[in-house]
Every structure is written in structure tokens, then in C-alpha cells.
């Protein structure tokens, strides 16, 4: 079957501002909404759009992500025609192919694009939160006859965080600036979602001589400079790029306060798929208070949970109190402990009678607890 469009999903980002959440995993493998991982969004969007030829471009801490995605069966991407391909850095005749920037990474895997020889190539990030039908983007791109179309949106916060796009009356991109100091108020932000006509992508990437290059920083300005036809596609849905801990936390909390944003219960339109935990439904053991919270499979809850999200297999012991927090999978909160305004990472064990109450959102893992305990002993 001829592949109309192929997707390159960039999952190599370090997500350094999310440290220590990303200490042992790539950003797309970060937990979200209890039972999801960030990468679920892009993979679900792809399968919902029947775009089943997917290159997953990895580099930073790939193990947990590869182990999670496996053959892609969760997203019905384990098919003989295409499916999921992990594209890892490799050693070739020319030397080690270490990725230097997002566009550089894609160029290293040009052989993969050539193999399927699609009309269009979709460049996506593995760490964005949004439900989007990529076919609309591709159709708009095909209809306009542009060389490249960028997905853009109007952010709910300052444009300064984003790549900012100005367009003319025909929708053509006139200029593009990464994180501008004084953005035009009517400009759009780039989602980091691009569709290229294949030839165009090949040409732009291949005659690049720079050692390090990114799509945002280098490829777009270059395409504009060289007078490629670059257009935008406006996405009106909910879109978040959770670059910081604060953002990650807020976006999670949107699920509690504004379930209508992502509509996770809507299985008819762009359902979100995630790998099964193979755990039984969670068990609320005692008559305790659970308010405005999301609780995932395998949890054992004997304490109070208020305005919080529990991932798979979390244990909340008797009389523990969880408030305004995210508890990642398999963490244990001991008897009588209080956790407020925290992100408790995977497998963290909070001993009984521990008080972890913060004014600002704080990430807790076994190491930070160790440090806190150490302080306490002084």
C-alpha cells in the first residue's frame, strides 16, 4: 500500500526543565493524568487518523519509552504494513550518527523516509498534550499546495515561550521568531507540528551544512529565507507543551477542574489510548473522603484524597491525607502522612507520619526524601 503520509515522532528531548521527573526517562515517557504518558497523545492521534507508518526518533534515555511503546499494539500500530519503527542513533561508515538537533535527527533517518516514499512527512513531538486529527492538517496542506505547513495555535499564556509566526492575508508565513522578546499580539505560536511535502523536506535537510540544527530554530527560518511556500494551519483545540513542572502540574489539574478540555471519556472522537497496567480496578478500602480526584487501576486507598490524581498501583495508607497532588505509579504514602502541593514520583515510599506540605509545587522522590530525612536528623 502506498503511504500517503509518514510521521516522524521526535521523542529524544531531555526535558531538562522537568528535572528530576526526567532524570531517568525521556520527556514523552512522563506520566500524565494518572494512567497516561505524554507520548500517548501523539500515538493516539496518529492511530485515530489512520496514519500507521511511524518513525519514533529516540536518543535521550530511550529504554523506558521503548519498553512502554513496545510493538505499538496499544495504538494498533503493530501492523506489518508500516507500524512503529524505533529510529535510534547508529554508527555508520561515516562515523557515529549522534543527533544534533531535531532536524539533524530526522536527516539521519532519511533512509527510512525513502523506504516508504510518502507524499508527505509529518514531524511531531512526543511530549505535547492535544487531541488533533492530523488528516485535517494534511488535507489543508495538500489543498494549498504549500511546501510546508506548520500547526499553530493561540496560547493561553505569553507568546514569549513559543516560536512565533506572523502570516499574511493569504495565510502564508511572513516571518518566524523563536521566543521573541516583544511578540506581535496577533501572532500565532507554533505547535511544533509540521507537515512537509517529501521532496521539500529532503531538499531543505540535505543542503544544510550546519552541524547542529533544529526545526524551529533553523529549518523554518531557512525555508522562509529560501522562499519556500510555508503556510499555517490553525488548531483551535486544547494544546499544551508542558515544558516546566508548574505547567505539567497545571495541565494535570485541568483534568480535574475542566474535564471538558480533553474529554478523556469521549471514546468516539479521538479517543486516547494507553498501555494496560494489567492491574485490577482500584480498591477504596475504608470510608474515607475522596473528592474531585482521579484514581487509576491497582490503587489501594485507605486515606483521604482531595483534588489529586493517583497513577496506577498507588497505595495510600490509613489516615494519610493527599491534597492538590500528583502521585505517580506504585508510590506508597504511609499512615498519617500529609502530602500537599507535591508531585510524588514513581516508586517513592513516603514513610508514616511524614509531612510534605508545600506552598509551591514540589517534586518528591526517594532521593529528595532521603535529603529531607537527613536534614531532619541534623
Amino acid at each position: 500500500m502506498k503511504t500517503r503520509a509518514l510521521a516522524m515522532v521526535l521523542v529524544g528531548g531531555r526535558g531538562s526543565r522537568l528535572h528530576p521527573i526526567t532524570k531517568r526517562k525521556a520527556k514523552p515517557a512522563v506520566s500524565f493524568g494518572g494512567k497516561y504518558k505524554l507520548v500517548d497523545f501523539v500515538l493516539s492521534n496518529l492511530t485515530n487518523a489512520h496514519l500507521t507508518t511511524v518513525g519514533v526518533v529516540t536518543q535521550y534515555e530511550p529504554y523506558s519509552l521503548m519498553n512502554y511503546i513496545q510493538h505499538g499494539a496499544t495504538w494498533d500500530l503493530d501492523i506489518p504494513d508500516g507500524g512503529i519503527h524505533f529510529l535510534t542513533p547508529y554508527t555508520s561508515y561515516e562515523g557515529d550518527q549522534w543527533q544534533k538537533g531535531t532536524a539533524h535527527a530526522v536527516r539521519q533517518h532519511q533512509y527510512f523516509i525513502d523506504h516508504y516514499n510518502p507524499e508527505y512527512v509529518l514531524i511531531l513531538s512526543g511530549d505535547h498534550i492535544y487531541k488533533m486529527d492530523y488528516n485535517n492538517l494534511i488535507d489543508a496542506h495538500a489543498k494549498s499546495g504549500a511546501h510546508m505547513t506548520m500547526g499553530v495555535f493561540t496560547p493561553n499564556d505569553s507568546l514569549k515561550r513559543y516560536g512565533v509566526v506572523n502570516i499574511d492575508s493569504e495565510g502564508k508565513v511572513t516571518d518566524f521568531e523563536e521566543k521573541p522578546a516583544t511578540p506581535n499580539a496577533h501572532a500565532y505560536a507554533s505547535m511544533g507540528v509540521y507537515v512537509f511535502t517529501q521532496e521539500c523536506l529532503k531538499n531543505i535537510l540535505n543542503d544544510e551544512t550546519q552541524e547542529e540544527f533544529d526545526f524551529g530554530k533553523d529549518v523554518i527560518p531557512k525555508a522562509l529565507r529560501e522562499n519556500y511556500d510555508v503556510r499555517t494551519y490553525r488548531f483551535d483545540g486544547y494544546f499544551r507543551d508542558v515544558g516546566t513542572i508548574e505547567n505539567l502540574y497545571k495541565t494535570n489539574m485541568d483534568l480535574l477542574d475542566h474535564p471538558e478540555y480533553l474529554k478523556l471519556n469521549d471514546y468516539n472522537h479521538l479517543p486516547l489510548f494507553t498501555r494496560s497496567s494489567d492491574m485490577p480496578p482500584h480498591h477504596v478500602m475504608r470510608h474515607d473522603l475522596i473528592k474531585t480526584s482521579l484514581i487509576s487501576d491497582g490503587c489501594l486507598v485507605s486515606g483521604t484524597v482531595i483534588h489529586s490524581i493517583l497513577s496506577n498501583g498507588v497505595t495510600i495508607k490509613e489516615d494519610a491525607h493527599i491534597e492538590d497532588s500528583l502521585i505517580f505509579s506504585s508510590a506508597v504514602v504511609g499512615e498519617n502522612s500529609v502530602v500537599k502541593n507535591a508531585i510524588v514520583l514513581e516508586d517513592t515510599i513516603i514513610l508514616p507520619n511524614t509531612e510534605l506540605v508545600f506552598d509551591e509545587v514540589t517534586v518528591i522522590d526517594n532521593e529528595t526524601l532521603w535529603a529531607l530525612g537527613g536534614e531532619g536528623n541534623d
Partner: protein
Amino acid sequence: MIDMLVIIDASHRDAFDKLTLHRTPGALPFAGKYRLIDFTLSNIKNAGVINAAIFPLGNYRSMQDHVGSGKRWNLDRRNDGLFILPPKNMLLPGEEMLSFQRMHEHIEYFRRSPQKYVMITPPSIVWNTDIEKLLDAHKASRAHISEIMHGGKRLKTFIIEKRLLLNYILEYDMIPYKTLKDLIVDPKIDKNMIDHEGYTSMITNPYVYLKSNLDMLKFEIGKTIFSNDYPIISKEKPAPPTFYGHDARIANSMISSGTSVYGTVENSIIGRDCIIQKKSAIKNSVIMNNSVIEEGVQLNNVILDKGTVVKQNTVLEGTPINPFVTQKEQIITDHSGLKVLMVASEVHPYAKTGGLADITGGLSRALSKKGIEVSVAIPLYKSVKENYHESYQFVTSHTTEYKGEKQEVRVHVLYKSKVKYYFLENFKYFERPSLYGYEDDCERFSFFNIVLEEVMDSLDDFDLLHLHDWQASLMPVLMKVKRKKPLKSVLTIHNIDYQGLCNPEVLSGRVMPFESERLNFLEIGIAEATRITTVSPTYREELRHEYYAKNLTYPLARRDRDFYGILNGISSKHRPIKDPLILSKYDVNDTFPKTENKLFLQRKMKLSMGVRNFVVAMVSRITEQKGFNLILEAMDHFLEKHDTVQFVLLGTGDESIVERLKILKDAHPTQISLNIGYDSAVPNYLYAGADLFLMPSRVEPCGLGQMIAMRYGTLPLVHKTGGLADSVEPYDPISKQGTGFMFDTFEVEALENTLENAYHVYLEEKDVWKSMVRRAMQVDFSLDTQAQKMLEIYQTLFNE
């Protein structure tokens, strides 16, 4: 890797009633996100079994959908893997266990599979077991066949070498056993019993289903079933974590993904994607996927099947033994104040010729106790007029044109124990000495239906009609042609042999939506009623076949989805502790006085008095249908062989059979007491005094005698058919449990063997017999249970 293949025996349906109407038991949802078969498949996976075959019953779509290629359980293989081996006859009724014959249909599978051993197990056991250990135990025993049991209970699970199994399969039509379960009873077989420790529950009925689900909420049990090292794997649908709203109150419950909780949930299991609205309270219940509980709803001991919607302020209350069960995708409304009009030809105590009156009367009273406003309409027969004219009151009169004459109908009402009885008075048609048996019966009941339809709006504002047998079957169609919004109706078929066949003239010009040269009242009722019920679940299954349903097979098949089997209940007056008609009263705690009753019976029947004599009794109409062809022959042999056996018969009927019975009596004059034409209305001393109650009917829609006998601690011996199959739990020689004796093939030899078995247990295993008597006395055949099941149907009829 383990050198064994596993046969998943999904060939039975068990007593699940509505829950398995459209799915096999293995496909039943369990513990929120699982289906029963997941436990067996996960045990298979965890043991490294790579070859498994499912033998499903007819409708296995939902199971097929669930297991897919078996990938989740590592059964998606190039060699071996997962097989689904359907029956050749898709309409096959459920079997007790997978037969050699069905295995023979797929003999190639057994031949091709390279594994040395075979395990056969049903998909309806909740357990987390190490199959490899079971195989090791079998090997160590060196027995030919091992049966896996749990605390003395049988699990229909066996391990056998494939070579041996193949022999049985190939010779299935020559050996006297249908299944491994039968085979293992043979004393010549070298067998071994393996007791499986750890939580094990074979789900066979709604009671066990509810209990086992709630067992998962006991942490000590739940953690052994949902072990981290040996996980239970299921097919998972995408669903976000459970959402708890601001007012949610939860105690000891498991709630699956995708569900939103705003109300109170206690000690319950909630499936995926349910909505539980505020001010609702769910206790001790199992709610399956996609159900919606609206505001103000209260549930206790309820099983809601998938997609059930419970409308605002509805209260559903079952008991742990008899949970309130709904059917898939139904809308349940509040029933308080629901007004039901029963339409029948007879009702106890006013007009009675047989069992129908007891059922319409008993059901009406039981429903009214449950908060339903019940009215009953029957013709005013002469006998009713004579006996009750001082008790009832005139309500209204109505004149109608019928067959060229003006007919006046006067309606009277009698209000008793919260039930309203309406009597329709008409001299020409109803005021005759007998209830029926007239040439113009069709005309009479056609007239009854026509005038009732015309007059009923002036009686009350009914919500629903419950129609009984052909005599009420025209009501739905009469309403359909006359009303914009006909009332909903439930038609109960008590006896399918009487259908009301007649000339369309009896409609006297009333239009019908169809034309026909001949009217069949029951057929019309079946086509037009909103729901149809019959008197036992097994009979309902049997009615799929021409042998039972005859000319109505196809009309019933078309209503298969709206057709239910509900076992009749019996009145609580049948209780040996309260019965003034027996010599010594007794109850389950002390059955000793039964002996005195036995001696009394023997004296009364002029049989030699002796406690050790084995008294076999029958109370029956004497017809071929009641199994007399078998009885005559089998009893002859049985009495010949044992001079300590005595046979007492009460009944009237077919002259030719009576003649043959008299010959039998002459052959064994001291052992038989024949009471032909005897007043069988009060045979209670017989129920109280006998040891065994014989009821080997060829066909028996429900049957009453076996239930009464059980209440009196007299074990029934029955043929496996209709209500007999539903009310008697057959004695099992391995687990030594049961409430009676049952034979399957309708042959003299089978009856004779079963009589011998029963007598053997009576003589040699006195403790087993006693425990069976106690068990039999405690079986619930209450009218209340029947009424609850009827209510489950009523409550689904009103959406919006």
C-alpha cells in the same frame, strides 16, 4: 513450557437466567474490568501453556470478541495457540459438561496437538492457580484421570493423558458415558482427586456471582487472586482513571476506569464507564460497564448488567441469595405505584380448575406485597357468582355489539389483601356451570378480551397488562388496533398445548392488523405482547425446539430476545411445621417426625409398616406425558428386586394406563398402593410420609409436586426436563451433594438405574441422605422470588 493443552469447556449455560441470555458464562464481566474467562486464560498464560481450545455454546460472539487471537495470554502462536471450536449444531441446549461427542466433532484438533496431557476446565472459575502444579500432582498420582476439586466441591476440571482421552472420544457412541464427569464415577476407572487450595469459586448462578464479586473486596482474598507475580490479564478498553466528584462517598469498593462517581458506593464493584449521580446510594451490588445510575437511586444486592440505566429515584432491592438482576441495556424505572392488570381465565381462590389459578393468585398477592397495585380480571363464572355475590360490589356496566347482538357486561369488584379482583358478568357467555370445556370457548374468551379492552379504562388507569395463556392473548392486538398508545403487556405461557384455535368470526368484525383464515390466540399474543415469559428457564430453552413448541417454534424464535423463563413459586402454606393435615409436624432442624408420618402413610395405604421400607410416592395426573411408560416397566423391575420398596400412587387419568397400573399392582400386591380417582387435593400426608417422590415426566414446563415434596423433605427423582431440571439439584456421587435424583435420557434403563442409585444412597449412605433432605427443604421456591423476577421484567418496560 508445559506439555499439556487446555480445553476450555464453555458448553454450559448454568442457571444465570438473564445474565447469560446473550452471552456464555465465560464472557460474564467480573470484578469490574475482567471477564470470567480471563482467570482461566491467565492461569494458562502464567503456566506457559501454548495450546488452548475453547468449546463454546451457540452464541459465542462476545467471547470471541473478548479473546481475539489470544495475544494477551501469549496464545497468538505460529504453532498451536488459541482455537475456538464451535458446535455443529448452534442451537444445542447447554450441556452439563463438554461431551465426548462434541470433542469428536473436532477430533482433528486433538489428533494434531502434540501435547501429551489434556486439562479440561470451564471458563467460569475465579481462581489463580498454578496449572503446572496440578499437572505434577496428576503425574505423581499415576492415575488415569485426575479431578481437581476445592473443599469437596467439584469444579468440572480434569487432567487426563491425551492418548486416553482420544480413546473415549473415538468411542463416544459405544461407551455409557457422555462426559468425563460421568466417566470418573465408574469404579473401574483409576482416578485421583486433587484438592486445590486457595480461593476458588465456580460461578454458576447469580447468587454465587454476586458473592464472589464481593469476595474480591476482602483484601485477604483479593490479593491472592490479583497477584503481582501471576497477574490476571484482560482485554482492556481505553478509559481514563475513575473520577470522583465533590460529593462522592466511598467505602470498600472497587471502581473501574472511566467511571464518574458523584454518589455513595459501599461494598460494591463498579465496572468501566459508569455514571453514578449524586444522592444515589449503591450497596452490596455489582454494576457492570456503561451503566447509569441517576439521582436519588438506591440499590442493594443488585446485579446490573452492562448498559443498564436506572432512572431517578428508583429503589431496587434484592437479597444476597436472590439478587435483583437486570438484563443488558435496559432502562429501569421506579415501580412504586405501578398498576398492573392481570388478565386470566382463573384465579385462586375464586375460580380454579388447576395450577394456573394458584399461580395467578399467588403471584398477584406476592406482587402487591412488593408495592405493585395489582388488579385481576376474570369472567364471572356461575360458581363465583354463587359463592361470592355478597362480597363483591358493582362497579360499572358496558354494552357492546357482539355477533349481531347487544351484550351487556356488568363489572364487579372485590378488594382483598390489597388486590382488586374484577369479575366480568355476562349471562350468555360466562354464567355456566364449568369454567371451560364448551364448544364456543374461543368465542367466550374472545368476547372476554374484547369487552375487557373496552371497559378497562373506566376501571382504573393501568400501566401494564399481565396476560395468562391463550384466554387473555388477544388483549395486545385489540389495544394495538384501537389505541394510539397501547399499554405494555407481558404474556405468560403456562401451557403451550392450549392455543385457542378458531374462526375469525369470533372477533365479530373487530379489525385485525392482519388477515387469516384461522385465528390462533396464543400465536397472536406471542407476536404482539411486549414481553413473553414461561414457567421455567429450562422450558424456555426447550421451547426453541419443535419437539416442545410444535407449531409455535417459529413465532417464539422471532421473540427470542423478549422471552424469559421464570420458575413458578409455591405458596408458603406448604410447610411441614405448619401443616394441620399431617400427623407430626417437623422442620429442617428436626426431621425425625417424618418417620411417624411414614408409618401413618403406610397404615393409611394398607402397606406393611416398617421404618426401613423405602416408600416411593407419586401424585400425578395419569398420562403418558408424566412418564408412565417408563414407570410401569422400571417399577416392575425395581419392586421385583427389592421387596422392601413400596410404591404409592395418587391420581386420575388415562384409562389404558390405569389398567396397566392395575396389572402392575397384581404382580406386586403387597408393595403397591393405587389410589385412582382419589381426592388429590390434600395429599400432604403423602408428601410428608414418603422417602422418594417420583416425577419422571417426559415434558414438564414447571411442575409443582417436586417443589412441594422438597419442602417436605421428600427427595424427588425426576427426568431432566423443564422446571424439574431447574428446581432439583441432582445428586452427585463424587461431591455427595444434591437435593434429589435426576436422569437425562428418557429411557426405562436410565430411570431404573437412578431408582437404584437413590435406594443405594438411602440404604448405605444415611448421612448423605439426611444432608440431602436438609438441603432440599431449604431451597427457595417462594412466590416472593418469582414476583421479584417478574418485577425485573415489569421495570424494564417503561423508558421515559
